[in-house]
């Protein structure tokens, strides 16, 4: 069973979001990293880029598969995890902590409230048969 921390919000494309004031920290869930396994490259959006909710903003390459990274919210990218350039496997090791991918200055904090909470995401995973 993959881990689903209670204090985060989630998307159907398996990203998670945590807020720090008006900033949103974004990563992929434990379930997503487990499915991908062996992440070897992360192409994150550049700092300064304006992104829209549900936009494909990056690419995650694992040994056996490639996956798009969708933005759970709209806003402006203010930071990219510098660790992932040399140690992309950090996402596999600690998807909700050290393996965060980008920080975004939110355009509309209400978008955050509309995302699935932990119990909603758990139900979603169960409904998908995981």
């Amino acid at each position, binding site marked *: 069973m993959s881990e689903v921390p209670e204090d985060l919000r989630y998307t159907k494309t398996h990203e998670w979001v945590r807020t720090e004031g008006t900033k949103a920290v974004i990563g992929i869930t434990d379930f997503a990293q487990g499915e991908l396994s*062996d992440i070897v*490259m992360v192409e994150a959006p550049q700092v300064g880029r304006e992104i829209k909710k549900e936009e494909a903003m990056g690419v995650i390459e694992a*040994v056996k598969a*490639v996956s798009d990274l969708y933005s759970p919210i709209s806003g402006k990218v203010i930071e990219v995890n510098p660790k992932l350039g040399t140690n992309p496997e950090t996402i596999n090791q600690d998807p909700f902590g050290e393996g965060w991918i980008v920080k975004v200055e939110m355009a509309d904090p209400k978008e955050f409230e509309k995302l699935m909470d932990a119990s909603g995401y758990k139900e979603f995973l169960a409904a998908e048969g995981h």
Partner: protein
Amino acid sequence: MDAKTPFYEKILQAGGRMVPFAGYSMPMQFEGIIPEHTKVRQSVGVFDVSHMGRVEVKGPQALEFLEHLVTNHVSKLQMFQAVYTVMCYPEGGIVDDLLIYRLPEHYLVVVNANNNAKDQAWMREQAEGYDVEIIDRTADIGQLAVQGPRAEDVLSKLTETNLSEIGFYQGIQTELAGVEMFISRTGYTGEDGFELYIPAAHAEAVWDKVFEAGKEEGIAPIGLGARDTLRLEMKYALYGNDIDKTTNPIEAGLSWVVKLDKPRFVGKEALEKVKEKKPSRRLVCLEVKDKGIPRPHDLIMTEGEELGHVTSGTFSPSLQKGIALGYVRRGHTKSGTELKIRTRRGEIPVEVVKPPFYKNASHK
């Protein structure tokens, strides 16, 4: 309901992450593709390959029939020796790639799991008029591949036989781990190693003994994920990806298993023509120059012009970069040629390189 190999319970206990594959429930990975890959390159790993098809061919005309069926020489096999070959359709497309062993009482044919039913139907069709028996042994025999530079060290602890005397693609009938079985120095990784053909009833006991014997070497179970990265680094073709009904062995770089000096075999006339006219495309090795990982079906390009497509692509754990196999139109296949692959991330520069990608493999 997916079928289970004789090692299924052992694999579950070892933490295998199971996926449906070729009608079986098989482990995609255990610890992870990269650590498993590295284990096999540096020490030793164990693959359950019982999902592959094992077919016995015997009878007075077994040899004649096999010579008719496949492109390589079968009559040149010494006792307990193996040969890698393909069998083709009359039009030259590939039915499957396979191993044939010469054993005292029969020939043992080992085919791809995905093709097992198709192959056996094809073999029976082609056997018409030959005095042969074709017997499916898939469920009777468990097959383990013990692969890596330390494979011989580990297995030597379990048998009286001097394994160092067994040459590449040679085998022996022996007692190993207390069980009478056939073993051969073969594999699909590029590393030294053996394949064990174990009566299904003894499969679990042998699994336990092999892992016990390999403790010191850090032996580990290996899944389908690493099996694919290991074979791809060696440019070993995978049926369904790199070769199939629509590809012929000449363009796939398998001319070395097509013996046009044989009096006849299915597909010979078609392949003679291909050889004479030179194939219009070839399967080449492509190495990514910077970042990016090619995936199957990605287009191979030069200056906006489409040259072919990727048939296998992955991240190479040994080279730490993307590698791919793909068919490329004649005139662009020389090593050193710079091409582009159109991936999900955009076009990435690649170079045609000589096989294999990984040059330090330990196989004998």
